[in-house]
């Protein structure tokens, strides 16, 4: 049991904090949010130089071979700074999947370019119907089909809520290639050139980063067979593995954001004067701060545990718990902060809270919301072993003849004694 980061990770954290405070202050975040692309190519190049794109990629592909905890450190700082970038899409959701399932050629070809910042990738998984039916992140939700046609496959259908698709070089598209059998055994991953004829993009008008998520329409898009990542019909397992990692990293982003919100809120409670006193002297305001802090602590521990658990066998429940918890808790944290900031906290251009709250809506829902992960927790609970039995000599505690704690008798005795 050790809650501390390693020395290297502490260094990474400090470096990331310093870099983002300097290069990505609130003004830059706001500017990028109004930019069509939704990210800054210049900052993307800089983080490639810092090694952030290769942090979890093995050395043989140019990365530094770190683990999920290293990624967590970086994503926490990115969340704190509201850093807009396609890091999660490119490195984790697509990069890790290619690393897990791709052929040697694919890995040699793609991973070094990801590490260098030359490629942006986007994961095309969720669909309009599945997202409405609550199956967005379940294999049953994949209905867009890919049909073999000579040396190619033809993909036809709509993917929705695809992050970073409009700036991507490749899409990693999950498509249905078999209808019989269990639904997770009929999904294939295709690496689709984002400029392929027949693909069109439309930016979605979302609360945060309004230009970062897309509708992607595949109109009979041709993809060569050699662009299949992993085995035919076996795409779900590697993809979902990356989704799990991604979900934990979203938790890390919420932890980073929550930490900053906590600092700002408590500081405001101490310095804002109304009724001739700091507002933080009122227990109502203190209650907001305390409820915020206790949830923030819980988010942090749950996320740290989950990031560690990603590298351990048999810990799916704890991973699911992290996202189930953080998604709801972060919403609550934002709400508590808003209560303390009152009017000024709602002013879109004066205050940073609107940025956090809106980004929060994205992070809560992306890669599985609370109900989705609660269901995963429940599935794991079903496997819980029964409680072990004790074997000592019985005390006859449940013998009906036994004289029990005479609650009512004590009451009567007491009443009589008065």
């Amino acid at each position, binding site marked *: 049991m050790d809650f501390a980061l390693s020395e290297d990770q502490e260094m990474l954290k400090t470096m990331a904090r310093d870099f983002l405070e300097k290069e990505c202050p609130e003004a830059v975040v706001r500017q990028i949010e109004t930019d069509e692309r939704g990210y800054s190519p210049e900052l993307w190049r800089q983080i490639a130089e810092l090694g952030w794109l290769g942090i979890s990629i093995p050395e043989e592909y140019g990365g530094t071979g770190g683990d999920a905890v290293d990624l967590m450190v970086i994503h926490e700082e990115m969340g704190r700074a509201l850093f807009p970038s396609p890091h999660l899409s490119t490195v984790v959701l697509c990069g890790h999947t290619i690393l897990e399932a791709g052929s040697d050629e694919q890995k040699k070809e793609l991973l070094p370019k990801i590490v260098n910042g030359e490629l942006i990738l986007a994961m095309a998984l969720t669909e309009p119907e599945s997202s409405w039916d609550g199956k967005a992140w379940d294999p049953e939700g994949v209905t867009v089909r890919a049909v073999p046609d000579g040396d190619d496959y033809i993909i036809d259908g709509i993917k929705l809520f695809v992050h970073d698709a409009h700036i991507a070089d490749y899409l990693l598209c999950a498509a249905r290639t078999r209808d019989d059998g269990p639904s997770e055994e009929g999904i294939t991953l295709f690496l689709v050139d984002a400029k392929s004829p027949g693909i069109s993009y439309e930016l979605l008008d979302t609360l945060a980063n309004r230009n970062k998520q897309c509708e992607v329409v595949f109109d009979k898009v041709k993809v060569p067979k050699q662009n299949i990542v992993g085995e035919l019909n076996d795409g779900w397992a590697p993809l979902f593995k990356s989704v799990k990692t991604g979900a934990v990293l979203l938790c890390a982003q919420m932890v980073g954001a929550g930490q900053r919100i906590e600092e700002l809120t408590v500081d405001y409670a101490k310095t804002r004067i109304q009724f001739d*006193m700091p507002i933080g002297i009122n227990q109502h305001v203190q209650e907001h701060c305390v409820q915020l802090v206790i949830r923030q602590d819980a988010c942090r*521990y749950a996320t740290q545990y989950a990031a560690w658990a990603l590298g351990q066998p048999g810990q799916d429940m704890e991973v699911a718990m992290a996202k189930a918890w953080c998604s709801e808790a972060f919403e609550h944290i934002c709400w508590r902060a808003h209560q303390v900031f009152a009017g000024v906290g709602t002013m879109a251009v004066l205050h940073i809270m609107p940025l956090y709250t809106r980004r929060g809506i994205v992070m809560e829902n992306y890669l599985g919301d609370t109900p989705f992960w609660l269901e995963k927790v429940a599935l794991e609970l079903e496997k819980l072993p029964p409680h072990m039995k*004790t074997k000592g*000599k*019985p005390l006859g*505690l449940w013998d009906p003849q036994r004289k029990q704690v005479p609650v009512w008798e004590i009451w009567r005795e007491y009443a009589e004694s008065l």
Partner: protein
Amino acid sequence: MEFGFSEEQQKLMAEMRDFCINELPEDYDPEYTGRFQEAETQEFWKQFHQKGVQKGWPTAGWPKKYGGMGFSAMEQAAISSEMSYWGARWGGIMAMTLVAPTVLTSGTEEQREKWIPPIARGEITAFECFTEPDAGSDEANVQLRAVPDGDEYVLNGQKTFISGGTKPDWLYTLCKTADVTPKHRGLSIFMVPGDAPGVSYRPLPTMGGSQQNEIFYDNVRVPKENLLGELNRGFYLAMTTFEFERAAGGGLGARRSMEKIMEYARQEKRNGKPLYQDSKARDMLARMAIHKHLEFLFGWYTAWHRSQRERLGPQHYNSGTLWHRLWQTFDGEKMGQVFGMYTQLRQKSKYARYNGRPGRTWEYMHAIHAAGSPEIRRVVIADRGLGLPRIPRQFNVQINEALKQV
């Protein structure tokens, strides 16, 4: 970052597990501890303790010099977490957590010789006698007086809500020994024999069936040697005591209750299917499991932090102490929604479900307030943890007077 247990800890926990499996009665249900306040079960824990003594476990965290094993906070937590998984406890637990630390840190050498060995053997039961009708959250407002008279002190006053069952050997009593401002500098702690002439008890059952006591002190005489630590430093001793009480480990007990309730949710049927497949039950179970996982993490964070003190400095607040109190009522509510009208049934009803536990969550409301209410814990987090402002105490009396004028 590492959330697994070291080999050493695992070994310790495995030994503890075997011990509990073999020693705890097979009809023991740790989810229903009310029974365990009865006299004969107190006797059971005493014996359990004595068997543990052979391994050195009950006093593992004490310094070697006084019969302990000098275990670190993490090793202690490994033991106590396994204990909590089984719902086991050492005999004379209050003496272990209250009297022993005080005597060890602030007692005289004679007091150590007198108290430590029998406490270590689990032979002494003690009550923590702090609360009075007018001194609840405001512990420093204790009015029970101890007045010197020759080689003795004479105690007069009343305590209330005191836990521990019946017939304690000793009363660890917080008394007023000086009229000073601030009030907490005029308090001292005395060890009062439970059967001293002038001490009388009135039982106060709680709605959950546990037994509290009102204790009256009528010209009770105790020798001067029974003063623990220094005169008028009692409040600080009480605070140290709390520090010791905070040893972590509740978390694994949390896992036990999930295993238990899942066992039940598999056997019980609703609409012809196992209860866990019912959508409301599923939601409740998953949320409960998360709260318990977090309880586990908060507990271990505390233990880890204690073990890292030198590196990290003092922990200014411990949100873990608030944690399960926050969710106890929430989980109870959810359980009530799943059990519906059956929530009302006590364990003895032939229609009772899940051993009558859903309703007990509500009856166990008393546990939320023992050892300081959640509101006071919030005040502590806000004040000492976050450094939020508060009205300086010395103005409280004036404000209260002013309120009467309005």
